[in-house]
């Protein structure tokens, strides 16, 4: 696939903003970095649907909007469905020749948080990918229902404390494992699936570009550090994300056509997972002596997962 050349840093920083900065996301929220980069990565027309969530409530507060595009806010679970309808009708009208400017390039994008992607919107996303609409779905994965008071989602990792999976005298927080959404989406046979993080912005921009250029449904899981619910100083968003990628808690990789796995970032020095945990309030109870074994177990799981990804990359299956 021939990709159009990616914008360099200068072009990025001098291009017109497609997501205006004057929104109400928390200071330090990674959502805006990710969305902004996706939108700035292309000059094509964008049709965007957004599930209910932090991004939606914070970027279109009457009478203002941050979006320079067609923008659909739909229910909590249906961005993938709404974008399916928009894309299907666009194609139909293109076939019929009723579009005003049939050659104008258009890209369809849906955004959802992890709650609306891993949980309530899961079925609708699965359907849209199976039907094969030409769109890119971006999950802004902050591992918690940040918009409704910090409840656990099925993306919340083991050991994190949330309002509905609290750490305390008898519990170390969430006990259930995070869903492997990337594998699930790849198993749908989607032509392009990836996981990226905003600290590695060049990789992220390239992956976004590749997804937008790929015909068919693409799914990108993006790590979006949440200063409010992960409990770290808002100035440290990128540092915390660095720890996420360098401890391999969030490996950065892509899967093409469900089989071809490519690791896109290999940390020069892999850090122990506890450095990532130590940077966030939601994990602070893990450092109590009675919870140390949880850290050890997670380290073991992360090592095994990294080994698995490398073996899959090698095997090309």
């Amino acid at each position, binding site marked *: 696939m021939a990709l159009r050349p990616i914008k360099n840093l200068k072009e990025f920083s001098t291009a017109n903003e497609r997501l205006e900065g004057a929104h109400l996301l928390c200071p330090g929220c990674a959502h805006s970095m990710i969305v902004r980069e996706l939108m700035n990565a292309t000059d094509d027309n964008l049709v965007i649907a957004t599930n209910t969530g932090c991004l939606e409530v914070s970027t279109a507060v009457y009478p203002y909007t941050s979006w320079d595009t067609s923008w659909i*806010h739909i229910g909590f679970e249906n961005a993938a469905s709404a974008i399916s309808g928009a894309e299907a009708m666009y194609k139909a009208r293109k076939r019929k020749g009723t579009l005003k400017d049939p050659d104008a390039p258009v890209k369809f994008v849906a955004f959802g948080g992890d709650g609306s992607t891993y949980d309530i919107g899961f079925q609708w996303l699965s359907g849209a990918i199976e039907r094969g609409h030409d769109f890119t779905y971006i999950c802004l994965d902050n591992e918690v*229902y940040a918009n409704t*008071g910090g*409840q656990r989602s099925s993306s919340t990792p083991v050991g994190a404390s949330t*309002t*509905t999976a609290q750490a305390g005298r008898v519990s170390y927080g969430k006990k259930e494992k995070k869903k492997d959404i990337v594998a699930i989406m790849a198993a749908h046979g989607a032509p392009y699936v990836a996981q990226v993080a905003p600290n590695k912005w060049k990789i992220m921009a390239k992956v976004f570009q590749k997804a937008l250029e790929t015909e068919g449904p693409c799914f990108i899981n993006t790590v979006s550090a949440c200063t409010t619910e992960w409990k770290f100083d808002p100035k440290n968003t990128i540092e915390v994300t660095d720890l996420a990628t360098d401890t391999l808690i969030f490996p950065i990789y892509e899967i093409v056509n469900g089989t071809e796995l490519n690791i896109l970032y290999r940390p020069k020095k892999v850090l122990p997972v506890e450095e990532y945990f130590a940077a966030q309030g939601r994990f602070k109870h893990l450092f109590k002596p009675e919870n140390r074994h949880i850290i050890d177990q997670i380290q073991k799981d992360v090592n095994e997962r990294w080994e698995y990804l490398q073996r899959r990359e090698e095997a090309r299956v």
Partner: protein
Amino acid sequence: MSDTREVISSGNELAALAAYDSGCLFYGGYPITPSSEVMHAMTDLMPKAGGAAVQMEDEIGGVAAAIGAAMAGVRSMTATSGPGISLKAENLGLAQMAEVPLVVVNVMRGGPSTGLPTRVAQGDVAQAKNPSHGDYKSITLCPGTLAECYTEVVRAFNLADRFMQPVFVLLDETLGHMHAKAIIPTAEKVKSEIKPRKTFDGDPKDYKPYGVGDDEPAILNPMFSGYRYNFTGLHHDADGFPTEEKETCRKLIDRLFRKVDAHRDEIESNEEFMLDDAEILLIGYGSASLAIKEAVVRLRDEGIKAGLFRPITLWPSPEKRLYELGQKFDKVLVVELNQGQYYEEIQRAMARHNIEKLTKTNGRPFSPQDIIDKVKEVF
């Protein structure tokens, strides 16, 4: 020893505490503003009670899990806000049809759709009457004070077990998030007044869960107790097995209505505030009634004799009492935080059209002055 206690709490937390004190053992839910605090409190309380609170993957899962737990024989609850009820609607219809006792708390916010998540409304009153397709008779309670967020949830659990169907409790954003002192019954008092659902303890061969009198609710024995029956949302016979036999189908739906209609006296609950010598009748419910009461007092200071009628059970509506009041009062003003959802019911019950209304749908509560101004304007 006193039967009451003083607490400082919020409406949402009191609803959860009431569930705990009523012997509720299961909560199935999903995060949604402005009701999430109910779930937060239940995740703390249910394990303490030896039960479980499960955060499900969506609203539909939340109510379906609560139905499953209710079938297992325990008191069960879900809480949400209007958009959540919209999603739960299908299963709420199932619970009406299969006669599953359940308490459903709806902390109302501005709608339709995502609406105004953090602001107050009373726009789900019509929805509570018929949230899903099909014919059945809703029981809907509407607390108007902080203390009633507790006592009405207690009453809801007893009514659910008595009538074997979901019982709605309509809170709203104002009451749910109001944090203040409330005087509520002691847990001992509540526990001593629990009326558990009926069970059948004869020979399992003779057990006919839906084979009951024509104004009686089903008798669903808890699972795991040696009694077997079929559970379905299809029209069903005395054993619970699907049927299309026309007399059985007719009787089933008639019974769903009659079990409520024939026992309205057990369900109805109203408050009459300064009504005896009043010349102007104000009608309102829920958090709006707080402003109305204040308006009544201030109007009386000015020599205008107003009074309040406040239905606490919204569905079935207190139609007899409304009719009497409609005959007695010329001047009637309905005050509600929607475009007149209950107003229409009051017109029907009073069998008259010349009723004034004051409505508001901008997410803000009424101030007493709004009501005073309206009274002076129209009367």
